Each structure stands twice: as C-alpha cells, then as structure tokens.
C-alpha cells in the first residue's frame, strides 16, 4: 500500500511539475529572450522481488530549457551587425534628407546667381542686376552655411549617441558581471538556473547591440565576454568599462576607450566589430567626413574662382576688384600624444586642386607618410615637408618644423573646415568687378581688316595700371611691340585667329583675326569706360564651365556630392535590410528551437492534466484498497 501510494504521489508530483512548467511557458510566451522549458522525467527505479522488479514510480530529473548555443550565438552576431547598420542608416537618412529638394539646393542657388550674372553681362551700367547678383551670392553662401550647420548638427547627434551607447553598455557589462556571480553561486546544485541563463543570454545580446561581444560559457554557466579585438569585456564577476576622451589626433571628436584590468585601449571600427558604436563611428568618420570634405572643397572652389575673377577685373569706378567670398583657412595640428617637438603648418596654394578630404601625416622615423582622409588613400611619402620649396599636396603647402619622434601624427583639416568660413563679403553693387582693367583698341585709320576676336586678363593688371602697349604691324604677318616695361620687341609673327605670343611684363592674352595692313596698330591701354564694360563679368559667367573644383565644374562637383550622399544612404539602407534579414533568419531558427507554441502547451496541459488525474486515481485506488483491507479485518 505504501508502495502504491508513493508511486501515485510521485506521479502526481511529476504531473504537477509538468503542469507548472507548461504554465510557466504560457506565462512567458511573450517574454523576450525566454527559452521554453520542459520537465525531464526519469523512472524512479524498481524494487527487487522474487517475481522480478516492481517499479517505484517516477522522478523529476530536471527542468531544462530548450536551447541551442550556436543559434543563440548567431542571433548575437547578427544583432551586432544590424545595430551597426541601423545606427549608420539612421544618420545617413538625415544626410539624405538634407539634399532632398533639388530646387532648394546649393546647385540651384549657384545657377540663380549665374542667371543674375548674365543680366550684369547684358547691362553692365545698370545697378539693379548687380544688386541682384550680390543678393543671389548671399543666398548661395547662406545655403552652404545651412547645409554646413545641419552637418554639424548630425555630427553633434552622433557624438551624443556615442556617449549614450557607452553609458548604457557599461551598465549592462556591470549587470552581466553580477549575474555571473549569481549563476556560479547556484551552480553548486546539479541543475541549471534556467531563468538566470536566459537573462545572461539576453544581456550578451544587449551588449552586442552596442559593440560586438563574443561570449564563452564557462563550466559553471557564467559568461566570459570578449570584444572583437580579443579584449576582455566581462571575465567572471569583473567587468571592463568603456569611456570617451578627446581624440588625440582630431580634437573635435571623441574617441572610445576600453578600460580593462588597468589597461586603456582605444577602440576603432575594427576592434568594435559591430554594434551601434561601430555604425556611429563609420557614419561620423566615413560618411559625414566625406560629405563635409566635399562641401568644403566645393565652397573653396567657388570662393577661389570668383575671388580670382574679381581680382582680374575692375569695378564700376575702375578700382581693382575685391574678393567676393571669404573662406575658412585649413587647420593643421599635431596629435596630443606626439612625443617629438614637430609642429605643422598648412596653407592653401592652389584652391582648385584641393581634394575632398583632410590629410593625416605620420612621421615613420625616415619619411612623412601622407594619407587622405576619410578614404585612406596615400598622398605620397616625403623625406621632408615640404618635399621641395613650393611643393604642394592636393593644393596645400604643408610644412613641418621641429623634430618629430617616430610615430608622431599630424592632422591637416582642409575640406572639413573650410566651408565653415564660407560667406559673401560685404560689397556694394558698384564693387562688382564687371569690367576689364585694360582694353584693346584698333588704331584710327587702320587700312587692314584686323579686329580683336578675344581679349582676356590672365593675371591682375596691377595698380597703378601699366602704361599702354602698342602693337604696330609691319606687314600682314609680323608686328612690333612698343611700351613694354622690358623695352620694345620687333618682328613678332602674327597669325589670324591664333593667340598672340605672351609678351613679357603683360598680364593679358590677345587674339586678333583678319589681315592687317602695314602701319595698322592696336593699343592695349587702360579701359576708358569701366562703368559700362562687361568683359570681366562675361569671364565670370564662364566660370560655370571651368574645372574650378578639383577639375570638375561647380555644377558637376555638386552633382557628385549629391550622388555621394545618395549612394551612401542607399548602400546603408540596403546593408540594413540585408543584415536585418539575416537576423530574422537567426531569430526564426531560435524561435523554432526555443519559442513557446501555445497550441503545443494546450495539448500538453491536457496531457499533464490527464496524467495528474490518473495519478490521483492511483492514490484513490491505494486508499480504497486500504479501506477494503480495514473492513475485512474489522
């Protein structure tokens, strides 16, 4: 009787445990990171009798979670990639939005300015087109400023997100270390602390949302977590922490540090390996840096083209043209961690040759390695800087003085900072240098048919203006020159429609066409009517077709900028969609193994309920047997 009772009660207990576990599963059907649990039963063994073995009932051997470590690791790894892609795509979405409205863009503002300039060409004496041109130039610089400000804002948001990510992940690392302690404490029992292990996996997954972390599970169930570069994040109950400091090379941004066991290790996109921090760093150092550099290059190109043309002309009153736009200067600085005494300076020599990027200079001990940022391409290696007097790198004259130590790094920021200072200078409409300082005039009474087909200033004429230069033809194919600062020249060749040879001491280029007669003359002297001349405005209107920005026209450079932003935004979206799909696959596999199916639980509930009822019947049978026995002996 006692045997039957104990068999019945063991079955009752087992069914009750199963029912409770099913209830737990149903209760946690929506709990993130929950792995469904099941009761492992084992036969309670048997007593030996002469007739054979008689069973003793059932034992609850274990309550185990349905869990596949490899599937969980796949979810963590893909989660890190998704977090990185998502963080990058969300920032790029903002950049993309900045360039959404083409008609409100920098390109449209530039075209509007050129349209106004065509009215100045048409009516140089009229003050109103000049005022319109200056207003449109203001709009252009405002647009560049607005884009620049939005880029700064995106940069600030990224820095803020990095800080948030660092704070949040430190908290999670601490929690995991504490959890490890609890897990190893309860590991003394022979059964697994299922719900603590679920929590452990969930925390590892959370860490992967910020940076890639690989978990190695110790025998006691605690997780040792390592970063992508092999640095320990959590070992048993000790947690490392992330911190931020000013980037030693570029003080304008922060650098992520890992403090572990007394060591401080700078983390980059490679050592972060994934997670939102990696995505944010990529967005900041690759995407945003590229767009900023292109804007800077564009602004510098516009400024140099228009300022240069202004300098070649004279304004309404005959005064030399003043710069139309101001532009920021490049900033060069040594890294704060440099051991040597080297200092660096950089100035713009050829704005049209500026590249869309900054330069990082590293002294290897024998040479300066110069690398373009953000794309990392080499700009050369030089034993000295400058390599030769007057030598430039991407339009910049870079020079290092003092004694750098091997490994010292310097940063030259050009593209990324120059747009900050882009603004229209305060000029009055009269100060638009629409006129050429000098003008050619065919001498009175010319018998031949020679006429001016092209006249342009190649360099500023200087102030005061040089004296008149007279070309006198000695025949249809030769001419003499008088009035040159270096003395007269004779017998120079003339060919119709071909530019005349460059004359020493002159800043202009002249092309005549037609057949001159001997004695005909051309005088190149001061422009008598700067108020009504349109020659320099005409040359300015032609700037839209010259390669002012790294060899491309201003419109094309802006188009390339838009394409760059679009391509980056699109590739980030695609990457996010793809990695999201991979994560979905991994999660789906995990759900297949570990997820709760309510129908299944319902069926099991039925099954366990019946088992419970059956076990109760066994006890009832034992009881009625006992009663029967008692009555028999009454």
């Amino acid at each position, binding site marked *: 009787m006692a045997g039957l009772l104990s068999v019945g009660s063991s079955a009752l207990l087992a069914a009750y445990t199963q029912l409770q576990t099913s209830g737990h599963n149903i209760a946690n059907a929506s709990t993130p990171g929950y792995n469904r649990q099941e009761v492992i039963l084992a036969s309670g063994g048997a007593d030996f009798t002469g007739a054979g073995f008689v069973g003793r009932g059932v034992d609850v051997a274990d309550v185990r979670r349905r869990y596949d470590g490899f599937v969980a690791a796949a979810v963590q790894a893909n989660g890190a990639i998704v977090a990185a892609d998502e963080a990058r795509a969300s920032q790029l979405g903002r950049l993309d939005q900045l360039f959404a409205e083409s008609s409100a863009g920098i390109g449209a503002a530039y075209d509007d300015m050129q349209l106004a300039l065509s009215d100045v060409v048409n009516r140089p004496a009229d003050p109103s087109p000049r005022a319109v041109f200056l207003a449109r130039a203001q709009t252009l610089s405002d647009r560049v400023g607005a884009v620049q400000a939005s880029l700064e804002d995106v940069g600030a948001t990224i820095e803020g997100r990095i800080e948030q990510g660092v704070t949040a992940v430190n908290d999670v690392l601490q929690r995991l270390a504490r959890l490890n302690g609890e897990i190893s404490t309860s590991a003394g029992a022979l059964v697994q602390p299922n719900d603590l292990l679920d929590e452990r996996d969930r925390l590892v997954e959370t860490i992967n949302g910020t940076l890639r972390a690989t978990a190695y599970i110790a025998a006691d169930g605690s997780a040792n977590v390592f970063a992508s570069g092999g640095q320990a994040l959590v070992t048993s109950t000790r947690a490392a922490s992330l911190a931020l400091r000013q980037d030693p090379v570029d003080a304008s941004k922060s650098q992520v540090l890992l403090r572990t066991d007394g060591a401080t290790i700078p983390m980059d996109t490679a050592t972060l390996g994934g997670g939102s921090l990696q995505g944010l760093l990529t967005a900041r150092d690759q995407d945003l840096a590229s767009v900023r550099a292109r804007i800077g290059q564009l602004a510098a190109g516009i400024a140099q083209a228009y300022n240069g043309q202004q300098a070649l002309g004279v304004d309404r009153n005959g005064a030399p043209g003043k710069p139309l736009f101001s532009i920021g200067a490049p900033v060069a600085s040594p890294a704060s961690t440099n051991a040597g005494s080297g200092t660096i300076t950089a100035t713009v020599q050829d704005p049209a040759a500026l590249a869309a990027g900054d330069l990082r200079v590293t002294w290897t001990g024998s040479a300066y390695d110069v690398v373009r940022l953000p794309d990392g391409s080499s700009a050369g290696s030089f034993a000295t800087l400058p390599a030769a007097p007057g030598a430039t790198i991407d339009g910049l004259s870079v020079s290092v003085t003092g004694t750098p130590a091997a490994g010292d790094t310097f940063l030259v920021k050009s593209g990324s900072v120059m747009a900050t200072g882009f603004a229209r200078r305060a000029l009055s409409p009269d100060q638009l240098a629409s006129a050429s300082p000098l003008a050619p005039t065919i001498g009175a009474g010319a018998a031949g048919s020679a006429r001016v087909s092209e006249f342009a200033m190649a360099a500023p004429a200087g102030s005061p203006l040089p004296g008149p230069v007279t070309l006198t033809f000695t025949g249809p194919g030769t001419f003499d020159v008088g009035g040159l600062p270096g003395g007269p020249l004779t017998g120079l060749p003339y060919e119709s429609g071909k530019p005349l040879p460059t004359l020493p001491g002159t800043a202009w280029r002249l092309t005549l066409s037609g057949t001159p007669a001997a004695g005909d003359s051309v005088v190149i002297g001061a422009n008598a009517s700067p108020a009504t001349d349109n020659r320099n405005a005409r040359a300015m209107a032609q700037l839209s077709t010259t390669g002012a920005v790294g060899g491309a026209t201003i419109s094309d450079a802006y188009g390339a900028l838009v394409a760059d932003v679009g391509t980056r*935004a699109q590739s980030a979206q695609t990457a996010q969609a793809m990695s999201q799909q991979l994560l979905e696959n991994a999660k789906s596999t995990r759900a297949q193994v570990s997820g709760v199916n309510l129908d299944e639980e319902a069926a099991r509930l039925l099954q366990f309920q019946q088992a419970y009822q059956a076990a109760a019947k066994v006890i009832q049978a034992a009881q009625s047997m006992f009663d029967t026995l008692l009555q028999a002996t009454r």
Partner: protein
Amino acid sequence: MRVTSSAYAVETSIRDLQQRRDAMTTTQMQISTGRRVVKPGDDPVAAADAERMRGQLSRIELETRVLGFARNNLGIADGALSDASNLLQSARETIVAAGNGSYSTRERSLLAEQIRQTRAQLLMVANRPDGTGGYVWGGQGSNVPPFADGAPPTYLPSPGEQRVGPGAGLSTSLDGRAAFTGQAGTPPQNVFQVLDDAVALLSDPAATPAALAAGISAGLSGVDVGLNALQAQRTQVGEQLRAVDMREESLAAGKLSATGYLAELTEVDLAEALSTLSTQQTALNAAMQTYAQVARMSLFQYL
C-alpha cells in the same frame, strides 16, 4: 518546422504588415508629389543626373536670356543701320542733284540746307539709345551719347564693341568710329565732315564750277565710303541675328530633351504607380485578413 506563438512570431507578423503599409505609403507619396526620386538615396544615379539636368536647364535659360537681349539690341541696331543708310542715301542723291550745272546759287543753297538737315538727323541716329541704357554705337561702352557734335563731331567711347553670349559672339553695341568717323581710307574719313564739306561747298556762292565738280565728286566718294561701312556693319548684324535664331532653335531642342530626361529621371509614371498601389492594397488587405484568421486559431478555444 516547429511554429511558435511567442512574442517573436507576433513581432514578425506585425513587421511584415508594417513593411507592406510602408511600401504603400511610399507609392502614395510618389503619386501625390508626382516624383519618384524624392531623396538622393532613392536613386543616387538619377538624383545626380537630375541635378546635372537642372543645371543644364538653368544654363539654357541663362543663354536664352542673353540671346533675347542680344536679339533686341541687334534688332535696334539693324533699324538704326537702315535709317542711317537711308539718310546717307538721300544725302548722296542730293549731292548728285547738286551736280546739275543749271542750278542757281540759291537752288544749291537749298540743297545745302537739305544736306544740313540730313546730317542733323544722321547725328541723331548715330546717338540712338539701344533701349537698355546704352547706345547702338556705344563702342566699348558709354554712358553718354557717343557722338559729341562739333565740326566735325567726335566719337567719345573707346572704339570697338560690347559683346555677350557664348564665345562672346554677339555684339550688343557697334563701333561708332568704324561706322561714322574713321572709315578705312587715307586719310580716315568722318562722314559728318564729308557732309559738312558738301554743305559748305554748296552754300558758297563764290564756288567755281571746277571746284564744285571736284567737291561733289569727293563728297560722293566720301558718302559711298560711309555707306559701305554701314553696309559692312549691317551684314555683321544680320549674320549675328541669324546665329541667334539658330542658337535659339538648338537651345529649344536642348531644353525639350533635358526637360524630358529630367522627367524620366525623377517623375513618377502615374499609370504604373497607380497599378502598383492597387496591387499593394490588395496584398495588404489579404495579409491583414489572413493574419487575423490565423492568429485567432488556438487550441485553447476548444478546451
């Protein structure tokens, strides 16, 4: 496969439904804005090309504006050249008439008066404004009437032309010296001086027949030089007007093709978008209905 009804399964279904709705909203937005490419990221190549096309259209507009201005100025110049030629032609006829030996001194002085009138009109034509603040014969630029009256009138601006347009091929002012005061010839002839000389000769009662004959012959050849100079400028203006016409035609063609390409790049094909929208609607509807049905299924209902 083991299907789960955990939070993950619900999330997946919700995300699928959201993605469908998102796609539908995108199509709806494309239809309402009429644009396929809203952000560069929608289609980077199309966005960059569209930027280029927009720039090209703007340059076409710019050139059209310059051409319109040049056409206006060239038209006015052509009219002025025609007027000046007519005046010189009438002066020439008067000088020819003055060669009639039977004319009395008084009759010659009447002719002289006629030439004086013509000369005054010619000076007015030579100082004709171009309607945009300049002068037809403004040379390299002038704020004041280019010919100052005198004996003879002098040309004030720098000789030459103001030009606009691609390759600076269109004149918006003409060289007054070449037209009136400094034609090729030795010595350079001022057409006003020629007329002044004719007036002086014809008003001189003491002029001998021989002097008259010589003076009239000189006057005729002088006027002919002037007419030739005006004719040369008129040819040049006519050529440029023809060039403006041709260029405007090619610009109109360029504008049409750029506008078409821009539309192709960025604008939405309404028929296609509407059919996509209705497909998406059907799909979303079906997805929602089936989800509601499948999600309702549960063994617990039967327990």
